[in-house]
């Protein structure tokens, strides 16, 4: 058994639901007990989906267990087919049904339905959501392509008469509940058009079963979300000899690499995309206002592909210092470990959010990039945070266009990461005016009447000095405490923590003004 307070990923059948919900004409029947229908709300509430997920559950209860649960599966499959008339069905089970071993996939396959029936076996006690999504997408694509009559499957034009036509690409991986997939699909289409590549099929998001039959017509596949599409892309490479563009184009450097990779595979001239500076990120990052971003300490945690991309952007494109990096995804652990090694860090591979919280607290970053979990952790620790990866809440499905991939994605990322930090010019102003009587944390905002707001700003921030424990026996002398108050309030907490840590390590029982400045020198960079 594994103790979980919060989980990064749901069970594998939720991954399968994401594939079914992404597709436009696939219906998924899950053999599952009453209550498992909660998963519908992930789509209808978090993603604000306007339709119910195309999923039917058997919702068995205890009284059904003594009876014919296999019969229940068949009735449910038949009713779902009759009602929804899908072009293909996926049939599987959730964790509880796995234990009663009705094998719903095989049962449904034996029913002679007039549409392809894809049985899903997703071991719920050893695997998780992204794996479930990846396998389901792979099973679906393979089943459709392997069972269709040859004349229904599109074939690739002979490369010999490729002259005069633009190369064709499939974009694989964008999925319902994926991070910014909706906008990434639009942005990747724009980018490919600019490069001179036409899009053949995007799947699974908004694809139909008929679209899947068109997949082999493309010259190559773009694995946009490796968590979802890696297995499928590998199979397509083996089966249809379609090369795979593996670089995920998040960040300016990765986007350029992505274009170069396409250039190599297709032989087209992509200089239009490579030579013009099409993102504002490079100039914004070079501009003097961004000087203050130099060496900002960053902690990055999330799924594999977004973390790896974020690490590169942080180091190469914003000149941040990555002080911690990790993923909850064991499937992506190798990629994240490699990225960590390049940064001379050890990757944190865990799905226990308490471990992540501890690592963040220890690393004392100035900005956290993560999922909704890290957003909550950062909020509790008083650290700015930007969300870069699923799982996310409703506010991370924004109304505005906000892709992550391509040149516009880089612009979005620049804004999203930089805004939580204090703006450069403002930081100078804060220093300049910090001794003004109006400008300190005791003063009420000038636009409020005297007295208003003072109560809020006087509320003491929780400090370790207020909660003495065995680990921080050092006590502040009044002089040092006075000196600490002269430090701008937004870095004061950190100064206090650093000084106390320094005093503890150095064995100083009392913190004097000397200790404060010794600590400042110690932690200077």
């Amino acid at each position, binding site marked *: *058994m594994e103790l979980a307070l919060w989980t990064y990923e749901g069970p594998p059948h939720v991954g399968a639901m994401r594939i079914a919900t992404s597709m436009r004409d696939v219906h998924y029947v899950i053999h599952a*007990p*009453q209550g*498992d229908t*909660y998963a519908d709300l992930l789509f209808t509430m978090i993603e604000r989906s306007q339709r119910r997920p195309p999923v039917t559950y058997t*919702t068995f209860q205890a009284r059904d267990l003594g009876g014919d649960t296999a019969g229940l599966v068949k009735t449910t499959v038949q009713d779902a087919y009759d009602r929804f008339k899908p072009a293909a069905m996926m049939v599987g089970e959730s964790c509880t049904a796995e*234990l009663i071993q009705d094998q719903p996939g095989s049962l449904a396959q034996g029913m002679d339905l007039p549409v392809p029936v894809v049985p899903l076996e997703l071991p719920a006690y*050893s695997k998780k959501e992204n794996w479930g999504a990846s396998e389901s997408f792979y099973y679906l694509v393979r089943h459709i392509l392997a069972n269709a009559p040859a004349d229904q499957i599109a074939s690739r034009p002979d490369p010999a008469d490729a002259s005069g036509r633009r190369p064709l690409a499939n974009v694989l991986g964008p999925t319902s509940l994926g991070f910014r997939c909706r906008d990434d699909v639009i942005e990747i289409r724009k980018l490919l058009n600019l490069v001179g590549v036409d899009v053949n099929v995007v799947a699974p998001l908004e694809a139909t079963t008929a679209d899947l039959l068109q997949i082999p017509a493309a010259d190559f596949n773009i694995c946009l979300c490796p968590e979802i599409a890696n297995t499928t892309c590998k199979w397509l490479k083996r089966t249809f000899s379609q090369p795979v563009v593996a670089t995920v184009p998040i960040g300016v450097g990765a986007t350029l690499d992505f274009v170069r990779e396409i250039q190599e595979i297709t032989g087209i001239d992509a200089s239009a995309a490579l030579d013009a500076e099409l993102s504002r990120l490079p100039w914004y990052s070079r501009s003097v206002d961004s000087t203050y971003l130099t060496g900002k300490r960053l902690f990055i945690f999330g799924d594999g592909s977004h973390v790896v991309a974020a690490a590169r952007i942080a180091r190469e494109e914003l000149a941040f210092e990555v002080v911690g990096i990790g993923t909850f995804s064991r499937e992506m652990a190798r990629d994240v470990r490699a990225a960590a090694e390049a940064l001379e860090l050890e990757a944190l591979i865990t799905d226990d959010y308490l471990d992540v919280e501890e690592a963040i607290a220890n690393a004392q970053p100035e900005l956290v990039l993560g999922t909704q979990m890290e957003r*909550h952790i950062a909020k509790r620790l008083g650290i700015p945070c930007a969300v870069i990866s699923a799982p996310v809440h409703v506010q991370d499905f924004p109304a505005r266009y906000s892709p992550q991939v391509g040149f516009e994605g880089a612009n979005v990322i620049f804004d999203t990461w930089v805004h939580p930090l204090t703006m450069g010019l403002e930081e100078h102003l804060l220093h300049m005016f910090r001794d003004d009587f109006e400008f300190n944390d005791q003063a009420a905002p000038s636009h409020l009447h005297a007295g208003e707001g003072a109560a809020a700003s006087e509320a003491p921030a929780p400090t370790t000095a207020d909660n003495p424990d065995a680990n921080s026996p050092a006590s502040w002398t009044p002089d040092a405490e006075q000196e600490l108050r002269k430090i701008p309030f937004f870095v004061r907490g950190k100064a206090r923590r650093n000084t106390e840590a320094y005093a503890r390590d150095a064995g100083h029982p009392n913190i004097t003004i000397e200790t404060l400045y010794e600590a400042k020198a110690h932690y200077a960079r």
Partner: protein
Amino acid sequence: MSSATLCDIPVTLERGQREVFCGLTGIVWLHRKMQDAFFLVVGSRTCAHLLQSAAGVMIFSEPRFATAIMQEKDLAGMADANDELDRIVERLLSRRPDIKTLFLVGSCPSEVIKLDLGRAAQRLSVAYNGQVRVLSYSGSGIETTFTEGEDTCLETMVRAAPQTDEQQLLVVGTLPDVVEDQLERLLDACGITEAAGKLAFFPPRRAETIPAIGPKTRFLLAQPFLNATRRALIGQGAVHIPALFPFGVEGTSAWLHSAARAFDVRKERVDTACAAPVARARKALEHYRHTLQGKTLWFMPDSQLEIPLARFLASECGMQLLEIGVPYLDQQTLSVELPALPENSGIVEGQDVDKQLERLHQATPDLVVCGLGLANPLEAQGVTSKWSIELVFSPIHGFEQVGDLAELFARPLQRKLKLAV
């Protein structure tokens, strides 16, 4: 479908896909109520995922609930699973020495593999030797529906309660503290507390101090889904005071009057004590009545609050009931509520969600009360909806909340009128 008649109200039984939460959801409000208790679900990743999806953004600290996620190796042998559980509990309790009561909560997988959590709870209670009391109940979807998880939890607590011969009044069902305080003041003012000798609320705010129960205990239910709890209390000798549930002016007045009759308190005394809060509640209700009056209403089966709320919305807000879906119906618990419904209220027990939605679209109600999975798709089809989960998280009982309760239903209708997009 089959039909039966209940207090002259036709009840249709339906079977099919049920779009409801399982009983684990109750942990979300039970752990807020009993702040010295920890809820450990023994289940799967699905259980953990459900809990955090249902709890959503509402709570995010280190919560007082968690899931012991069973893995492949746990399913191999029973002895293994018990050892694993002991190890998890040890880790948990060493992290949280403030925990005085630990609930082991059964789930679908733990029940299908017949993991005996009752015995595990006994074993662990002995092991922690009075430091921590370990209790167990089922929150599984195969045994419980949504609020029924509170019912099974309280049932377990009733069985763990000490005996007493003292006369007392017990108010049973989780209520927000603020509502509990209001009801306590009312019961005092009506002279009911004095006549009863003692007043206690169940569950208590600290699980450590479960109120004693005995043959001189009389109890009022504050929530309509406590069927097993009611039976367990009767089993301990306690006497149920049947009453309307304290929703709306009429429900709250009737609830107090029923208690008064049980303890021979004069009706006039209750009327006097209630006069001012009743006047306030009527005034508050008046703000929303014009919005709700004459509007048609449809309940999808969900929280099990449907019948008393339907009674309130029909009788005090003038709404027309088209269909009242309920996950299950206990006629004894609802013996006073059912006759208070308007004639020809269509009650449907159980669910076949697709058929129900077809009927709903035929009937075109002005407002649908439903779960989170259905609300946005209905809105997208132009059907105004009210999420039922808010009804279990918001204070809605008693006189002082009558206006708030009506407002919950009026808001989506008013919003629809305001929006020009």
